[in-house]
């Protein structure tokens, strides 16, 4: 149609300068030491932090699974509502998403603290104060709370494309709840599931705010470690770049499992 390829030129230049070049610089720093000589030391040092990487991956995975389980019914029920109601509900799901991320996490701090609201309410019925904040559980809770809408929306979008007659046909053929779930709903909503997993797992694995505000600073995640190297206590660009490189590889690996890089598929994300 409009065959003006040159229109894309400004963007291509921009992309090369501000998307590709920075990543190359990260790789450069990862593979050199502070004097500029090539070295693999940085990558080797990361071995000491394998527990941090493992912890981040595991916590992010747990949060993703919880989000998936919680969001799946929500997406389904939303898609079966009347169209006018769907619109409003969709907006209501998105509203927390548009509120500031820091404020939402901060809100949980006042709920989870020892003298926080939840403990006070439990105290009224005589249940002892539970140590909820500054634990891995609090971090997972923070992740689930912040990223649940990102899982609900793709699932909902995918499920609106599943015609109700398909479900009814399955019921007519004698399928029970479980069969409908595994044979009809899940396979047909796979694109939504894939998108949702991507949109939850990637931010969850690389966050540093949630672990700092709800985790007490003693259980570091990858994001904390990287931040420490750049703007924090341990000023070490090379080590930080090496960690970023490893994180990027991990994320790309996970991405290759959950989504295909076909044009049309990608647009479901936005």
């Amino acid at each position, binding site marked *: 149609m409009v065959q003006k390829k040159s229109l894309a030129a400004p963007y291509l230049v921009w992309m090369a300068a501000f998307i590709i070049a920075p990543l190359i610089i990260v790789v450069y720093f990862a593979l050199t030491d502070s004097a500029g000589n090539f070295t693999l030391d940085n990558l080797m040092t990361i071995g000491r932090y394998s527990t941090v990487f493992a912890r981040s991956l595991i916590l992010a995975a747990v949060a993703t699974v919880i989000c998936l389980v919680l969001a799946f019914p929500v997406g389904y029920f939303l898609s079966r509502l009347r169209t006018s109601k769907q619109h409003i509900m969709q907006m209501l799901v998105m509203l927390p998403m548009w509120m500031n991320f820091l404020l939402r996490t901060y809100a949980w701090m006042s709920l989870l603290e020892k003298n926080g609201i939840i403990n006070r309410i439990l105290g009224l019925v005589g249940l002892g104060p539970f140590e909820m904040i500054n634990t891995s559980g609090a971090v997972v809770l923070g992740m689930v709370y912040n990223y649940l809408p990102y899982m609900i929306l793709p699932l909902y979008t995918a499920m609106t494309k599943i015609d109700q007659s398909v479900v009814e046909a399955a019921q007519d053929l004698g399928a029970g709840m479980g069969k409908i779930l595994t044979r009809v709903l899940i396979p047909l909503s796979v694109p939504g599931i894939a998108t949702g997993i991507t949109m939850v797992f990637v931010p969850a694995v690389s966050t540093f705010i949630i672990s700092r505000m709800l985790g007490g600073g003693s259980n570091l995640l990858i994001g904390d470690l990287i931040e420490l190297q750049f703007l924090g206590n341990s000023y070490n660009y090379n080590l930080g770049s090496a960690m970023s490189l490893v994180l990027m590889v991990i*994320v790309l690996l996970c991405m290759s499992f959950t989504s295909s890089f076909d044009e049309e598929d990608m647009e479901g994300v*936005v």
Partner: protein
Amino acid sequence: MKQKHWRALQQAYMVLIFSFLYVPIVVMAVFSFNESKSRSVFTGFTLNWYKSLFTNSMILDALALSVAIALISALISTVVGTMAAVGISGMGRKSRLLINNLSYLPIVNPEIITGVSLMLLFVAYRGFAAWANAHMGAELVPQNIFGLPTLLIAHISFSVPYVIFNVSPKLRQLDVRMYEAALDLGCNPTQAFFKVVMPELMPAILSAFLICITYSIDDFIISYFTCGNLQTLPIAIYSMTRKKVSPEINALSTIIFLVILAIILFTNHMDSRKYRRDQQRRG
């Protein structure tokens, strides 16, 4: 009977999930009216925190900066992105695939890596500028770019892909025959583009513009690494949460919530009016 139980269960579950999503926000709102500074004991009703929020120059400056950056970066991103989407649609399959995959990178990359890589780029540039200036003996290359320039560059970099992925599908759905008809009727390509293609793309471009603004105002991690000595709103909030707590934060969060709610209700109202008008036109 079973249907009734099923529906009750459905509704209960939805209520549960929505309360989970909204309870913290509501709690924050309630305690923004709290007399004392306590975050868990409600002692009395007051509007003081809202008043002091409006005189808090740090927050107001940060808000102004955030809004300015959001508008400027969204504008530039939308223009560059739309141009890019049009240009990319005219390319061969292989180059299209390559560019789309590369454009996907800022979206899928963890924000901390985008932030860190941009910071390294700017630091490297600064080193280069210092060397160049020393070489030439004069300050010809701008050296201290951290601040407004770096923030704008960073925000544009992560916004443009969203524009591309919003406009491209609309572009593909476009009926080529309309464009060709315009050419047949005597328009040159530029006129045809602006008179036929652009109006069709407008909804996608507008929604892309809004998405850019949203992501830009809410961005914390990338701004954190590229802000220099400036503070955007999320960064100001972050520094507030690390200090002696003040219910001013609660007041701020309540205000943001109400503004967003108002925007949502307004757009919903506009959408339903448009829907009804379309229905009438068709019927």
